């Protein structure tokens, strides 16, 4: 069960963009970007930069022959700003020089005059002013209007969650190398090779086949390189094409933080109504999504917020309204969970405030309302193989909730400043891209004469272990040693029209495509072996540990010999396959359908300690029971869960993005934006696999794992509040995440922020 790629990583031998030996004569690019959040460009003077010693060229929008347009869902984003700027950090010009430092210093010599306008930073203000990216979305089930009267209590409120920086350890980067015939080879750190190919082709006004995009691996992506790796690849593409020389760009960390988008901040209204026996009867929510200055992936992100509005609960009457609001911040983008976590934070806040009003523990309400098979989601998909209750029960078998509650109460009664708290978080996360067409993948499996195998797919390896899982799939089908199987780079000339590796679907889609291609080859080989070994028509032929077995008896052939003979007999040893997720559909007008192939479930418990004198906290324990399906690789799956959980906890607690009133990022370095270090990790960290579960909808019964566990992190927020309440029961804390040290202290001592 080794996690294969790591043998390269631990020795420092894995290559990332900045490690690749570039061709001689490679030039380096730096970006000149807008210092202002909103305004009209009056004058741009690039002469000084152009004449700077060592500079080869400065490119602006005027140098673009094709479309100056990088928008995917909505065509509303320029590669290089032409007449207006819409956010601080918007690229305006590209400076190319012999080395990076020269390019960077020269970029500072550009002069720009901008007629400054007042930026909009707040999504609610944008909505009031009609600045919407797309029409408001409405998801409705039952009728909330008619049931408010039946409710025993109704609570309303506001919940807000903040942005989150991806902080992939490898920053954005790309190298473009001119090829024969006016084409380009682009090596990019992207989750979406085809997006890079399509956008660059558009910008350069050439057919896509002239551009080859190659991706080895990413030093982390988390969604940050789904849409937003593209501009940097297109920029070096433009420069390389114009100059006929290879051009490289790797963003320095601070620049990456300043100019790239992050997880969307949301401000939301909620209204929840419960019956006497704690059943949620009605739930309304309005989401004001801060989309930033351009659409990017925001509409799709909002759609996922809407589909996850009710998390893991069945609520018969729901009305969710979503606004994707245009502001003057760098376009917010995909980030693990893709809007789902933001939606879930709101319902959890609603449940928490209802529980407070009723004087019950929030977990009583959570438990009472868990989804069961046959229940309907607000988008009308019916719950199948629902494991919400099973996971919750499994967790309760492991831990006694009352014991935990009483133990904490007892500790708190004796401790002056340190208070403990806990919270639970059930999750339900839909698996599939919400845009149906994206749910497809391709695989190309080549068997070489010597029996070794090379597999290409559309999947990008970025630490999630998809390459290892794909190897596991091929290993299982052929029953050969894993060292014989190599996963090739992801390359648009081998696998065309790739969907981004995102939505947790990388292994589901590409694993399945690989399975199909491998089975094609396997069947071909078995037929050949039957012939070659002159077997009876009804003989059963298997490959077991590289041996060819006929009716349970070892034959004269092993894998290598079989392949060699197949080759000499002119058998096609290469197979391509394509997979498209069956049965999914979604009507975006009615917002009804079956958008997800299946759902992932689980329950988490988080315990914390808060130092109420200093306003600091520690995560004591995280205990989770998660439905992984039948895991293909437990080491990988557990690692994905743990990594996602910590990222989720940090989004809710220490990671805070701050902009000043002019829209400039204040937390623009690792010294001001803190992600978890090893000491932040909970002392007890226990992720359990739900037992006896199968998933008929993904490869070998497995389940997607990249995103869902992130949302257990939401429990950290409520656990901290739980602890704070025992220090100051009268504190009046808003539902605002992240719960930074500052928020904790100010709330504990009743100060306004």
């Amino acid at each position, binding site marked *: 069960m*080794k*996690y294969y790629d*790591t*043998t*390269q*990583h*631990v*020795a*420092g031998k894995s290559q990332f963009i*900045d490690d690749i030996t570039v061709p001689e004569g490679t030039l380096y690019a730096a970006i000149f970007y807008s210092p202002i959040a909103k305004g009209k460009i009056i004058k741009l003077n690039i002469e000084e930069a152009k004449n700077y010693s060592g500079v080869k060229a400065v490119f602006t929008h005027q140098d673009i022959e094709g479309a100056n347009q990088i928008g995917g869902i909505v065509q509303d984003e320029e590669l290089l700003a032409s007449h207006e700027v819409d956010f601080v950090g918007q690229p305006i010009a590209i400076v190319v020089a012999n080395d990076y*430092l020269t390019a*960077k210093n020269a970029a500072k010599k550009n002069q720009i005059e901008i007629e400054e306008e007042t930026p909009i930073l707040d999504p609610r203000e944008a909505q009031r002013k009609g600045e919407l990216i797309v029409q408001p979305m409405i998801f409705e089930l039952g009728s909330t209007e008619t049931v408010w009267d039946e409710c025993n209590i109704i609570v309303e409120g506001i919940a807000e969650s903040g942005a989150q920086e991806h902080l992939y*350890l*490898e920053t954005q980067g790309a190298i473009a190398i001119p090829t024969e015939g006016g084409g380009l080879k682009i090596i990019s750190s992207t989750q979406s090779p085809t997006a890079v190919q399509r956008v660059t082709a558009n910008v350069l006004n050439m057919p896509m086949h002239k551009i080859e995009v190659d991706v080895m*691996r990413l*030093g*982390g992506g*988390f969604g940050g390189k789904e849409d937003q790796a593209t501009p940097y690849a297109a920029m070096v593409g433009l420069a390389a094409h114009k100059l006929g020389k290879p051009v490289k760009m790797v963003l*320095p*960390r601070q620049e990456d933080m300043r100019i790239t988008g992050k997880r969307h901040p949301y401000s939301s209204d909620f209204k929840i109504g419960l019956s006497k026996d704690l059943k949620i009867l009605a739930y309304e929510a309005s989401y004001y999504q801060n989309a930033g200055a351009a659409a990017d992936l925001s509409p799709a992100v909002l759609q996922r917020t809407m589909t996850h509005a009710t998390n893991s609960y069945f609520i018969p009457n729901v009305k969710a309204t979503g606004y994707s609001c245009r502001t003057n911040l760098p376009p917010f983008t995909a980030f693990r969970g893709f809007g789902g976590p933001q939606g879930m934070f709101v319902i959890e806040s609603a449940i928490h405030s209802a529980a407070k009003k009723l004087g019950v523990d929030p977990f009583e309400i959570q438990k009472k309302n868990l989804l069961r098979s046959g229940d309907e989601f607000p988008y009308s998909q019916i719950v199948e193989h629902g494991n919400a209750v099973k996971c919750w029960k499994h967790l309760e078998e492991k831990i006694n909730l009352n014991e935990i509650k009483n133990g904490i109460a007892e500790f708190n009664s004796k401790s*002056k*400043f340190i208070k403990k708290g806990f919270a639970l978080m059930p999750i339900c996360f839909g698996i599939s891209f919400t845009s149906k067409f994206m749910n497809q993948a391709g695989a190309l499996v080549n068997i070489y004469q010597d029996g070794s195998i090379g597999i290409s797919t559309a999947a990008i390896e970025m*630490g*999630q*272990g998809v390459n290892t899982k794909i190897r596991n799939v091929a290993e299982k089908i052929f029953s050969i040693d894993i060292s014989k199987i190599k996963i090739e780079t992801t390359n648009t000339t081998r696998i065309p029209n790739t969907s981004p590796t995102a939505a947790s679907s990388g292994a589901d889609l590409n694993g399945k495509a690989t399975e199909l291609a491998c089975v094609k080859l396997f069947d071909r080989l078995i037929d050949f072996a039957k012939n070659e070994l002159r077997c009876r028509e009804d003989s059963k032929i298997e490959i077991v540990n590289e041996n060819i077995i006929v009716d349970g008896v070892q034959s004269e052939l092993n894998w290598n010999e079989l392949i060699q003979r197949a080759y000499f007999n002119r058998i096609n040893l290469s197979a391509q396959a394509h997979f498209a997720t069956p049965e999914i559909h979604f009507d975006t007008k009615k917002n009804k359908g079956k958008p997800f192939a299946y759902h992932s479930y689980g329950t988490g418990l988080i315990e914390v300690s808060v130092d109420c*004198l*200093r*306003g600091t906290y520690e995560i004591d324990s995280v205990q989770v029971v998660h439905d992984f399906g039948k895991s293909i690789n437990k*080491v990988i799956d557990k*690692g994905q869960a*743990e*990594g996602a*959980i910590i*990222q989720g906890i940090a989004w809710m607690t*220490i990671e805070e993005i701050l902009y000043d009133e002019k829209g400039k990022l204040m*937390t623009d*370095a*690792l*010294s*001001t934006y*803190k*992600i*978890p*270090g*090893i*000491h*932040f*990790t909970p002392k007890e*960290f226990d992720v359990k696999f739900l037992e006896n579960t199968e998933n008929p909808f993904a490869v070998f019964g497995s389940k997607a794992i990249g995103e869902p566990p992130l949302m257990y992190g939401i429990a950290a927020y409520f656990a901290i509040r739980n602890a704070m309440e025992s220090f*100051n029961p009268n504190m009046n804390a808003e539902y605002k995440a992240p719960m*930074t*040290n*500052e928020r904790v*202290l*100010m709330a*504990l*001592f009743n*100060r*306004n*922020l």
Partner: protein
Amino acid sequence: MKMNLKFICNKNLVVTEVQPGKSLLDFIRKDLRLTGSKEGCREGDCGACTVLIGELENDRMIYKTVNSCIMPVGDINGKHLVTIEGLSDGKLNQIQNDFVEQGASQCGFCTPGFIVSLCGYFLSNEKPILKDAIDSLDGNVCRCTGYESIRNAINNSIVFLESNEGDSKRHIEKLVSSNFIPEYFLEIPQRLNNLSIDIQKDSVNGDAKQIIGGGTDLLVQRWEEIENADVNLIFNLHQNEKITVEDNICKIKATTTVSEFWESEIIKKYLPEITESLYLFGSLPIRNRATLGGNIINASPIADMTSILLALDAKLIIEGNSRKQIKLNEFYTGYKTMKLEPGEILDDIHIELPDEGARFNFEKISRRTYLDIASVNSSIYLVIDKDVISEVHLSAGGVAPIPLYLFETVNYLKGKEIAFETIKSAAEITLKEIKPISDARGSSAYKSLMLRNLLFAHFAKLFPNIIVVEELI
């Protein structure tokens, strides 16, 4: 001005000429073309660039982890530089195997840094324990794993090493025979000796104006300039005992690193409470390079060592045309301005040894507890005589343009009885003495409240029963 450089990189002797202020990471990646050390931030905050610097001390090799991104390359003269490429020879070492086995590496970008830090830990600890090994990773961040698998991997390595115990070989030999480090490490002391480099003389360039201590401030803030500047590398200026005691005065060389300060037997003996808080300063690789002098001269309002030294009522000995002495609490004149003339160099820091019964406490609050710059910090030094405060020094950082000595609060507290009311009144005076601003590390209101609470925290720590919680809210 270029400098001649002779050192051993992994197995190989390197003889070359460099601009001494250039970032060591750039030198490793671009000049040596060793790309296993990664650039994740270039500000000492991620650890992806971690390397080991080995030096001979009494014929033994001492290895320390450093952030190569913010270390000037000139400082490796005569030393052994170990990068990730030098930690396995043909086959993976045990720590690497355990990482693979536990899935402790996902995207892999951070991984070389973790492996180097851990090898550094095992090299310098004969009795490894999990908690300490984890502490040695306070300078490495990983965005993928969540660290649980890393903890498990380390645990396995420790267990493996322990199971190899038995024979009384030297530690380094045991590490080699247990496959923690390659064999060539055994020959390094001899090879370094043969280089015959006088580390002190062959690195320091007294004529250059730009002084660099550890470089942990300078190379973060101005690396583009420093890269080609004439620099005076003073990190290796003092090769003898850096902390000494003479006539009841503890003399600390300005080039003393935070790590050396922490490990000093003298500090441990006289100021044990300080050493307990030093884990809050940066990370291990930062502490290995950050000098006390750099901390003081950088004049950041939130400098932790300066905060501590203010509460110890330190005096600075400055070397220039003449030798002058100035009290630290009179040294700063405004934001990043101080009584230091161009060409002057901070040589020594003097503190009086504490009285019997003196108490000390340091508090620091930041966004993240480990490896973070303070939002607010504060240090207190107290001598109590029959419940009465006979001597007190108090400092506060992050609440004014300079590291602040709280003169008025100190005046008030002197001679007062230790009681909750006293502390409350003192806190009110403090709040009038400070002028916090809102920035990325917190709003001014938060910083005020924080400092008030830190005053209470000082006393709550030193006199556990004194604070009445109900009266705080």
